[in-house]
């Protein structure tokens, strides 16, 4: 599903360069649940952003569903994102003036799905995360756990091949974190690959495989 070959990425900081990823090789198979771990500054978020086509890389090759993605323009990247990828963020990133169901339906809007159909589908996905009764509520009326479940429903609705989650439990207490992880697991069982960036080892342990990053390189522990 995802193949990374010798990915390098550096940022310009004034006159000098900060080399963040120093040659990452990885292979995430279809239906795998992988955790990326590392201390802050290890490059895990950068890696996730590259995986999510939110950021470019300098050298190497990245195959998403056997398509080489490199130096994409924004329109193409947006198309690929909406076709293959679903995002879950630490701070949920729901649109504050849209209701739960509208938030979930949003990716379908950008795919051009008719309003009636996408709202019906959004309700279905809300039901899957157990929040059907909250469909008409605004994000500000929901708890952190509920928000994250809505974000997951939003990530799922476009029927992606891969879910990319950036510290999805970072803003949640332990009990809710475990609930959210259960949802990820059940998603994974349906054959969707899940990549979770985290620095909590108990969360990482729930995944099939852990990729450890240190100073821009994958290390084996």
């Amino acid at each position, binding site marked *: 599903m995802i193949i990374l070959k010798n990915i390098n990425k550096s940022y310009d900081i004034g006159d000098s360069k900060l080399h963040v990823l120093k040659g990452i090789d990885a292979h995430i198979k279809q239906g795998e649940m992988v955790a990326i771990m590392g201390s802050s500054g290890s490059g895990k978020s950068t890696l996730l*952003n590259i995986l*999510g086509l*939110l*950021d470019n890389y300098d050298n190497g090759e990245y195959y998403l569903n056997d398509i080489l993605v490199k130096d994409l323009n*924004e*329109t193409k990247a*947006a*198309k690929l*994102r*909406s076709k293959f990828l*679903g*995002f879950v*963020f630490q701070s949920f*990133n*729901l*649109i*504050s*003036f*849209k209701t739960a169901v509208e938030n979930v339906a*949003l*990716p379908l*809007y*950008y*795919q051009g799905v008719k*309003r009636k159909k996408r709202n019906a589908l959004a309700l279905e996905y809300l039901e899957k995360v157990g929040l059907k009764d909250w469909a008409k509520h605004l994000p500000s009326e929901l708890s952190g756990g509920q928000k994250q479940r809505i974000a997951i429903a*939003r*990530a799922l609705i*476009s029927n992606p091949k891969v879910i990319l989650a950036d510290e999805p439990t970072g803003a949640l207490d332990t009990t809710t974190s475990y609930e959210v992880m259960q949802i990820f697991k059940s998603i994974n069982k349906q054959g969707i690959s899940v990549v979770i960036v985290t620095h909590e080892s108990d969360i990482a342990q729930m995944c099939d495989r852990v990729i450890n990053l240190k100073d821009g390189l994958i290390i084996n522990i």
Partner: protein
Amino acid sequence: MIDLDNIKEIYASLMQNKLRTALTVFGVSWGVFMLLIMLGSGKGLENGVTQGFGDFATNSMFVWSKRTSMPYKGFPRGRNINFTNRDIAALKSSIQEIDIIAPKIQAYGGEGNNVIRGKEVGAFSINGDYPDYNRIDPVKILQGRFINNKDITDLRKVCVIGDRVYKIMFKPNENAIGKYLKINGVYFKVVGVFKPKSKDMGEDKSEVVILPFTTLQKVYNYGDIIGYFAITAKQNIPVSVVEQKVRTRLAELHSIHPDDKLALGGFNVEKQFKQMKGIFTGINILVWIVGIGTLLAGVIGVSNIMLVIVKERTKEIGIKRAIGASPKSVITQIIYEAVIITVFSGLLGLTAGAWVVELVAYFVNNGGGDTGMFSNPEINFSVAIKAIIVLSVSGIFAGFVPAKRAVSVKPIDALRDE
């Protein structure tokens, strides 16, 4: 294209800061409002003045005789010049560019109330006219008819009276036709009542009694003297050309020194009319410059506000792009927003402006009294349509820079924005 979601989003984003939105709306609508008020007033002024002309032939001129200021051919200076009946034929035959030539004369004397009918008396101007004069300064006939050629040739003692004269000399709704008026001691039969169309061209014609030109000359002992000439030029011939030729010819006929500018008086209606048209063109240009300027200020305001909105919503735009929004959909959303706010504000200003102009028009038209230089301010429909098009286009321009700014931020940076 635009759909319910676009509209909902625009509504939500505009409602996030109501005061700011209201001020932006005010900026644009004030611009349009001012433009409309100015256009309406300009038009009102123009209508008022052109209506004052009525159907007055604008390709006309007047020429009258005065006193010489230079000695010539043995005549001393200070000699009184009088036009005579011979001049009519002489001018007509020698100047091809003349279309209508209407000699006029005014009866003087008879101090005070010169028109008498039983117990009713009044002081009016007594004019002698040819039927042709009605083609230069047409009047509206209320009863009967105007002077005709038969009146001229038969020296009929008939008269046509203005509506004020009728009002004073006759009872309301009384039939004036066939009745007699004693004018400077001579009885004349009324054959027509008229209402002037033009306003204040030298005199108030509602208070005029018109006699056949020849009758007036004869009855009041003017011999063959003519008071003055009203002349129109043929089509496509400038009045100034005719004026020059008429003056030269009259100077020859009456032994006036060619350089004696003071012996003949005159008035070129076309020149005056053109000058006035020029003033209105100037006013119009000024109105548009100021109006467009005000509008532009409003539109720049919209652009500014959109920039702020984009900046505020950077994160939201980042989220949308992460979940599949293409740059194009982000750009169109922002441009829609700018266009909607501009067009909405514009229509608001347009409606308010149209209301005010209509209100003024209503009071001007129904307020009674003579409004003089101001009449029927109006805005035509095509201006409104043009305004909407201009607004939409300026909305697109207003949204363009902020929209470009929105997509120039990489989604990852947008997401990081806190």
